[in-house]
């Protein structure tokens, strides 16, 4: 059948042709596959691993802060938290609503959560709440299947067992600023905090430690499937050991009570700061948890400025505590000898201006030693008339006034030691002799911090350039053997030290508070710094100068005291400034004596050890 045969031939030829094309197509597929999986196999294997393996950071455990006796000032405590992974939540708002039935979320934290979710990558967890109690935490865990994207986690948060007593020193921790979140991947870990104030901030790099990494297998939406070894553990931060004696610090804070005051207690031999107390304090733990607006406003508005570390940031006229420096300057200049006498009738005239002694009726005739012991102002007016201000300034600086010591706490201020040059530059005026008279009794432009006054006292007591330190093992602090002798005649220093001892004796301004019986004798100097100008009219009025008790708090004098003990072998120096506290002898001196007693008291050993 030719017709069928022809059709068959055409068909066969063409079918074979198509079969050939089909074979070529299949071979092309095979070749492509070979190209992908064998030629480029390694490349795609790497890309597949890059897809599935994610490197996650492990937050390091922060180093702790200890006092000199090993008491914990800052430590880490378990913190139960609720987190939300935005991409795993089906819908954000309904989930948040459901969470709110379990955890109490206020509007402010809701706003924060929403903002955070908007800014962060969607698989980075956002902290919903922290510091949960066990009940809430377990309830959340039970409800978790109904709350897609919500996770719970037990992390570490910072705790300051010392509380208010050390708030100004250690500072506190806070979440990194929103704009800083991208500076380090660590900052994106939920609940990660950085030192925001004080030693926590200053020693951030030491305390933080190094983050570790773990490799996890993740799926396409970033959910962790399992961990792939090996894990690189994080490195715990280093501990910080302070020179502080927490027992003493707590005692000082307790004794200061409600006063606005700054106290520094130093070990003279090595500069160790045993106590650095600023009253009133605040609770740094409140900042860790996130302080409420009401409490924050209260702290800001308190006239006693609780947020200010008065020991380094408070700048006060040193008052009569400067008199040792002025006397030393005069002695070194050969202007006076310890025996040089002047007559005090209660006032001193310079041109048409009258300078008053605190003792209205005058001290009569006295020598330098009596002048310091009784804190006679007129004696120092007499010296100041002949003493150049720059000599006083030079001597003040040798004793650490006008200097900062970089001890690691926040806000160290320089105070002010006025000189001719300072006056010229900052006030564009020539120095007036009257100003020297004011400076000589620690008033006028002269300003100092309690820390500087403590350093001054330690240097007076030891004759060495004592440098304070707060942190052990910090290169900034130096040990006793490195302190240089001061460039001051030791005989003159000894003379001044004897006058400081006389302050506490019969006839001295702080005689009432000298140590009774056989207790260790101490030396010191009172100071009362005027904060208001006393008008002529007030002095002439009946009753004279108004008593501190009758003045509003903010106009009262600052009460100061600097001192050291024991007299013969000085060990501990102290400075006390009570803001608007009244008289140095009546308010500051008794406090200082108690602080020195406590500092020198033999350590109470562990009662269990005794038994």
């Amino acid at each position, binding site marked *: *059948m030719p*017709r*069928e*045969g*022809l*059709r*068959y031939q*055409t*068909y*066969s030829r*063409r*079918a*074979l042709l*198509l*079969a050939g094309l*089909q*074979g070529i*197509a*299949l071979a*092309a*597929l*095979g070749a*492509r*596959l*070979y190209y*992908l*999986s*064998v030629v*480029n*196999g390694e*490349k*795609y*294997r790497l*890309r*597949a*691993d890059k*897809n*599935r393996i994610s490197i996650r950071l492990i937050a390091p455990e922060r180093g702790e802060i200890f006092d000199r006796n090993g008491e914990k000032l800052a430590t880490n405590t378990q913190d139960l938290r609720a987190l939300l992974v935005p991409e795993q939540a089906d819908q954000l708002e309904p989930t948040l609503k459901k969470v709110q039935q379990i955890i109490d979320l206020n509007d402010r934290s809701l706003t924060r959560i929403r903002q955070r979710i908007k800014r962060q990558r969607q698989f980075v967890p956002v902290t919903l709440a922290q510091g949960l109690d066990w009940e809430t935490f377990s309830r959340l865990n039970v409800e978790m299947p109904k709350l897609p994207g919500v996770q719970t986690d037990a992390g570490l948060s910072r705790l300051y067992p010392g509380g208010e007593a050390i708030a100004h020193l250690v500072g506190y921790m806070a979440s990194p600023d929103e704009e800083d979140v991208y500076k380090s991947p660590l900052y994106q870990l939920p609940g990660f905090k950085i030192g925001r104030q004080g030693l926590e901030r200053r020693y951030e790099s030491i305390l933080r430690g190094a983050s570790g990494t773990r490799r996890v*297998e*993740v*799926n*396409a*939406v970033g959910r962790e*499937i399992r961990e792939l070894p090996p894990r690189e553990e994080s490195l715990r931060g280093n501990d910080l050991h302070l020179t502080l004696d927490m027992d003493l610090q707590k005692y000082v804070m307790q004794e200061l009570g409600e006063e606005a005051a700054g106290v520094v207690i130093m070990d003279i031999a090595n500069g160790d700061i045993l106590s650095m107390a600023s009253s009133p304090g605040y609770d740094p733990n409140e900042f860790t948890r996130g302080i409420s607006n009401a409490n924050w406003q209260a702290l800001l508005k308190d006239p006693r400025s609780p947020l200010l570390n008065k020991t380094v940031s408070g700048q006060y006229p040193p008052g009569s505590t400067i008199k040792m420096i002025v006397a030393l300057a005069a002695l070194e200049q050969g202007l006076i000898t310890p025996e040089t006498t002047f007559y005090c009738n209660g006032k001193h005239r310079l041109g048409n201006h009258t300078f008053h002694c605190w003792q209205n009726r005058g001290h009569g005739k006295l020598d330098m030693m009596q002048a310091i012991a009784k804190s006679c102002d007129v004696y120092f007016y007499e010296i100041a008339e002949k003493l150049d201000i720059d000599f006083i300034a030079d001597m003040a600086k040798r004793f650490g006034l006008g200097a900062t010591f970089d001890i690691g706490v926040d806000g160290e201020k320089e105070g002010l030691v006025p000189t001719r040059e300072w006056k010229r530059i900052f006030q564009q005026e020539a120095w007036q002799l009257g100003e020297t008279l004011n400076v000589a009794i620690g008033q006028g432009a002269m300003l100092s911090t309690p820390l500087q006054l403590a350093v001054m006292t330690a240097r007076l007591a030891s004759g060495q350039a004592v440098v304070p330190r707060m942190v052990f093992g910090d290169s900034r602090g130096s040990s006793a053997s490195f302190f240089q002798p001061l460039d001051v005649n030791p005989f003159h220093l000894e003379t001044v030290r004897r006058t400081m001892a006389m302050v506490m004796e019969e006839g001295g301004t702080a005689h009432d508070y000298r140590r009774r019986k056989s207790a260790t004798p101490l030396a010191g100097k009172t100071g009362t710094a005027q904060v208001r100008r006393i008008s002529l009219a007030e002095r002439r009025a009946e009753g004279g100068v108004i008593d501190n008790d009758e003045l509003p708090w903010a106009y009262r004098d600052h009460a100061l005291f600097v001192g050291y003990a024991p007299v013969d072998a000085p060990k501990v120096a102290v400075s006390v400034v009570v803001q608007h506290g009244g008289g140095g002898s009546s308010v500051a001196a008794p406090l200082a004596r108690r602080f020195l007693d406590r500092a020198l008291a033999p350590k109470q050993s562990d009662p269990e050890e005794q038994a």
Partner: protein
Amino acid sequence: MAAGSMFAPRRVQKSLLQRFVGLNWGIVLATVLIAVSGFAMLYSVADGTWDPWASRQMVRFGFALVLMLSIAVIDIRYWVALSYPAWFAGLMLLIAVEFIGDTGMGGQRWLDLGFMRLQPSELMKIATVMAVARYYHGRSQMQSRSLRSLVVPLLLLLVPFILVVRQPDLGTALMIMAGGLAVAFLAGAPAWLFVVSGIGLAAAIPVVWQFLRSYQKDRILTFLNPESDPLGAGYQITQSKIALGSGGMTGKGFLEGTQSHLNFLPEMKTDFIFTVLVEEFGLVGATIVLALYGIVLTYGLLIGIGCRNQFGRLLASGLAISLFLYVLINVGMVMGLLPVVGVPLPLVSYGGSAMLTWMLAYGLILSVSVHRHVTIAPKGSGIV
């Protein structure tokens, strides 16, 4: 002359049992093996469980296998008689989906019959090949070569083509077209015509581009440069290539595919199941499955060489080429050789429509094989 004797009238009437025994069981076995590889991959995609996909797929395949074998043993002359009616029935269903079809994947494609969702365009792939084969069966060599003989086949092709394009489902429409044209080519339509129209089509691409839906344009643009949008439209193809390539020579092992089990791959149980297979079984596994497809399809294409009737020859080869395109488009797509057009891999991908098409078509191909000695009059079988 051997060929002459082959066409000599012979009385061949086998019993149903004889025909059943005479089936090409090698091809049946290869088909089952392909389907089994599909079950394994569906088991893997479900993270090592039979539910919900592998088990259902197996039940479906069981039914489809019975259907295929039944079709294979039915006298081919019935199928000759049913060719045109089948085409008309398919046409009616296509028109029906125009009005009452369910929308899915961006177009109207499904007809919900209550117990199953029918995709008329799939059935039309088979019906068109049947109708065109039936037409050329009645044409002599001379008639087949004439241009006039192309009028009816082109109508048989273009009407369903246009209806399917409107759904819109360009991929299936082109496959309907290709199957029908393959039959015309094998029947003897002028070869130069195919070359010329090929060139013409290439020239028409810019015009066609204007009529494409935005998702179709996206697919093509992404295909040309998948890395341009690695997280958007290009994500699928990029991840698929990573999975294929990372499988290497022998693969990552059964249930060990990371791209699939960690959900980096899209559409794993359907369009991209071949990718899962290659990731877990590597080039070796892929070659075995592709070879099985090659054997089955080449058998279908060349079965007509031993067949005494033109209808059978054209039907078997046309269907085989249609099914081959199915495989080629899917595998080419997951490898990044062709645009992502949403074509499943028949028998392996999860889903009933593609499997049904494949098994119906192979029922017919096996029927051609069983009835290769039957002669059929040009006007038809006279049975119906």
